[in-house]
């Protein structure tokens, strides 16, 4: 009996989250509207508890559990901790926004925690089945979250698009996985890696499988030419949901890609590297150029996400530990910046006013110098200008690309990021050079303002001393491969 229980031990944080979600669902059904804060507090407590459990059982080497379906390694632990942090920040940022729009309900918290659970499973999966399970748990929660604002036709449309395209992507992914299964006879990543490293005669089905898997992953990441859903969903979803979609799932998606390509299909790097090169270059080009034409900040940031995911792919396509570590650093930094910038839209919004147009940021420096400064840091960080942390993210990824001899790719990447710098600069221009046309005082809740300050200063502090975060990434990748 005890043997049976101990094999569940590595999955304790996941089990805890699941138990708590069920509890919140029950409690929330029993309380009335004035006590919705219970769900909010319990959700934060859940995240904190999961963080505690993860920290308590930090692993120093990979441990397989549940019959090889589940893996607990330093990479999973580190990414989970960042997931908790991200989700907690999302909850804090969104509270006022949700309350003003009648979305402050148990459903939001339950869905957010289910999404978190899905991401945790993705991060810790060592088997195609668990990977897919985690992905679908995440995706289904996100579809529902986007559609949560029932009376908004834009949000409903966004949810519909998201669902149809997301389901298509999942189908492609499954198709690719089944082909790889056909070639190797296994669904466990370690076995697949072993069998493929020994060589196989079934090249054609294998290559087809890799193509479908990469296409599915590209869909989930939002890489061009599989990016169509990103701007519409980011734009149409209520900002709090955009904040969620734009931050934590990127971290999980990184783990997903690294687990499949870096661990399972490691020996096929020659096959997928060229595909990723094309995806990365197209994403950076389309993302950066299309962002210039946007007048809606959420849409602009959606295109910016596309270009950032392209940049992140540069690290992965290097196919080395150095590259994965760099991509991990990039995605964590991106999540931090994305949280800050969508969080800023939430902070500036109020009942009946979304604050998601570019012109809503006009003259912010006169209305609130501190928030303008935080946004300035975030924008320069997105553009990769030192001394903000965004610069080191780009540096890390670029050096991984140059290391494998793709200097031309690095040159293309920096030239495209130059185009990107334009629209980030434009935000700074609006905030600092223009005069405000809206003089309503900005009075965000003190806790979200505090978190925002910490968020902005973290971008600067990590820019001055990036080593701790970088060391964590290097360690996590090094100890898990």
């Amino acid at each position, binding site marked *: 009996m005890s043997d049976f229980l101990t094999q569940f031990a590595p999955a304790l944080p996941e089990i805890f989250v699941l138990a708590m979600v069920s509890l919140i669902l029950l409690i929330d059904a029993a309380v009335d509207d004035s006590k919705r804060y219970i769900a909010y507090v319990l959700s934060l407590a859940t995240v904190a508890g999961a963080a505690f459990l993860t920290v308590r059982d930090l692993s120093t080497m990979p441990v397989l559990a549940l019959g090889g379906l589940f893996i607990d390694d330093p990479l999973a632990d580190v990414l989970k901790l960042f997931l908790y942090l991200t989700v907690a920040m999302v909850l804090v940022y969104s509270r006022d926004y949700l309350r003003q729009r009648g979305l402050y309900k148990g459903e939001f918290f339950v869905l957010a925690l289910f999404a978190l659970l899905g991401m945790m499973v993705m991060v810790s999966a060592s088997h195609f089945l668990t990977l897919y399970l985690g992905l679908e748990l995440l995706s289904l929660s996100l579809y529902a979250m986007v559609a949560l604002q029932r009376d908004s036709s834009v949000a409903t449309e966004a949810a519909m698009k998201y669902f149809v395209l997301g389901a298509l992507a999942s189908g492609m992914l499954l198709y690719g996985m089944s082909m790889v299964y056909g070639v190797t006879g296994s669904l466990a990543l370690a076995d697949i890696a072993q069998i493929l490293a020994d060589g196989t005669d079934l090249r054609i089905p294998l290559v087809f499988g890799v193509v479908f898997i990469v296409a599915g992953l590209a869909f989930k990441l939002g890489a061009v030419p599989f990016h169509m859903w990103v701007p519409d969903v980011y734009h149409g979803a209520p900002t709090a949901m955009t904040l969620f979609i734009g931050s934590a799932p990127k971290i999980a998606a990184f783990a997903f890609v690294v687990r499949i390509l870096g661990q399972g299909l490691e020996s096929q790097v020659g096959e997928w590297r060229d595909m990723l090169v094309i995806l990365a270059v197209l994403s950076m080009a389309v993302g950066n150029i299309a962002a210039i034409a946007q007048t809606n900040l959420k849409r602009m940031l959606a295109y910016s996400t596309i270009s950032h995911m392209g940049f992140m792919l540069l690290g992965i396509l290097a196919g080395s530990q150095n590259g994965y570590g760099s991509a991990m650093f990039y995605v964590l930094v991106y999540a931090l910046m994305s949280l800050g910038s969508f969080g800023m839209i939430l902070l500036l919004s109020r009942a009946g006013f979304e604050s998601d147009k570019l012109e809503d940021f006009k003259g912010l420096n006169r209305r609130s110098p501190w928030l303008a400064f935080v946004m300035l840091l975030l924008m320069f960080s997105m553009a990769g200008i030192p001394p903000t942390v965004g610069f080191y993210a780009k540096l890390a990824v670029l050096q991984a690309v*140059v290391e494998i001899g793709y200097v031309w790719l690095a040159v293309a990447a920096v030239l495209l990021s130059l185009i990107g710098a334009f629209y980030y*600069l434009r935000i700074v221009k609006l905030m600092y050079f223009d005069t405000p046309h809206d003089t309503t005082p900005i009075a965000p809740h003190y806790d979200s303002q505090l978190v925002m300050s910490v968020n902005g200063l973290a971008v600067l502090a990590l820019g001055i001393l990036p080593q701790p975060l970088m060391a964590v990434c290097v360690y996590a990748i090094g100890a898990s491969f």
Partner: protein
Amino acid sequence: MFGQSILSLVIWVPILAGVAVLATGSDRNAMLARWIALAGALLGFIVAIPLVTGFDTGTSAMQFVEKAEWIPAFNIHYHLGVDGISMPLILLNSFITVLVVIAGWQVIQDNVAQYMAAFLIMSGLINGVFASLDGILFYVFFEGMLIPLYLIVGVWGGPNRVYAAFKFFLYTLLGSLLMLVSMIYLYFQSGGSFDIQTWHTTTLGMTAQTLMFFAFLLAFGVKVPMWPVHTWLPDAHVEAPTGGSVVLAAITLKVGAYGFLRFILPILPDASAEFAWFVIALSLIAVAYIGLVALAQSDMKKLIAYSSIAHMGFVTLGFFMFSPLGVEGGLVQMISHGFVSAALFLCIGVMYDRLHSRQIKDYGGLVNKMPLFAAFFMLFAMANAGLPATSGFVGEFMVIMAATKVNFWFAFVAATTLILGAAYTLWMYKRVVFGEVTNPRVEELTDINAREILLLGMLAVCVLAMGLYPKPFTDVMHVSVVDLLAHVAQSKLP
């Protein structure tokens, strides 16, 4: 106690002072912000003085070295040090910062704290550029200074400031990003080091050297700025507030020229020799053609901006003569131009504050109303034209001499600056200061006040001192320059 960390102080004192100024908040505390800024700028200058007094002119090795691990993951160090090339530039920068704070004392009434803080932070970052011995540290400072400068031009600039700020930022970013890729390439070629001095001894093939040469050339050429990538400068200058123009001309242009000496020449000597003709050609075009362009300007700030480009052409020309005389001449010209262009922009600022026009045609007969100002302006105009006994003469003369040794025609074209420079500067001076008073508003002008006399007086002393006795400056540089040229003479081909 701080003997070991003078360079850190030189970098961080202005930056922390800038943060302190920001903390004073809104314009209600404007006076407090001004005084803190002045104290910070003075303190920044004072902590830089030991660099001169403790400097050993007998060695080419880096001095006041500080080295600590910064990002071990990529072997990046917080590595500072100065030699005879960078030390004078740090001092120049710290000095100009004091002037800029004083210059903005009354003129800036809007967002005073942010204005002062932007200049102080930028001053610290620029000191960092000159003191960095690690490639990435250099890059961080080099790029970081774009942020305050972008805000200075964009927030306190003239009517077309937004266009100018974007143009300036994107132009310089383009060059820097290619330089970043080159640096990463060097990192792998040198066996995993971002140390600039290690790069000085790294062997590189000719193709790699050529590609990196043009990447670095673009990065630093845009900053210098060299023809034909100079077009951002007149726009930025015209739209920037006086302090912004002073810092742009006196300091940031020097950052580009400094990059030639710290990166291009010693790291890529073979490509530098191969493509010296290219740089020389661009420099001569800058000297002669831009000189003519300056002649045609009707806006005083634009005129001085073009004259800056022509003068910086001299600097790059001197560097690519590959002789101690040429390089030292270029360096002297850099410092001299720092003083003279700062002074001229301050002079224009003095007039602009009173009449709110930069057009030459709006002035005339100024000497009747502002005799003291006219005298100062005369001195600086002469220095800009390269009159002997002013600092402007020394550098130009050294570079022309060095050029004569290499090729008579280089020297011939370069020497046209003595005519063109005199023509555009003195013609402008004549139209602004002499003649009848035609504009009724000139009648109401008052002469410069004590604050302005202090500003211009300090610069006048520097210009004359350097013109009459330049030896202390060249002594400081000499050993480092000779060592640099020894590096340049050594092929880095594998």
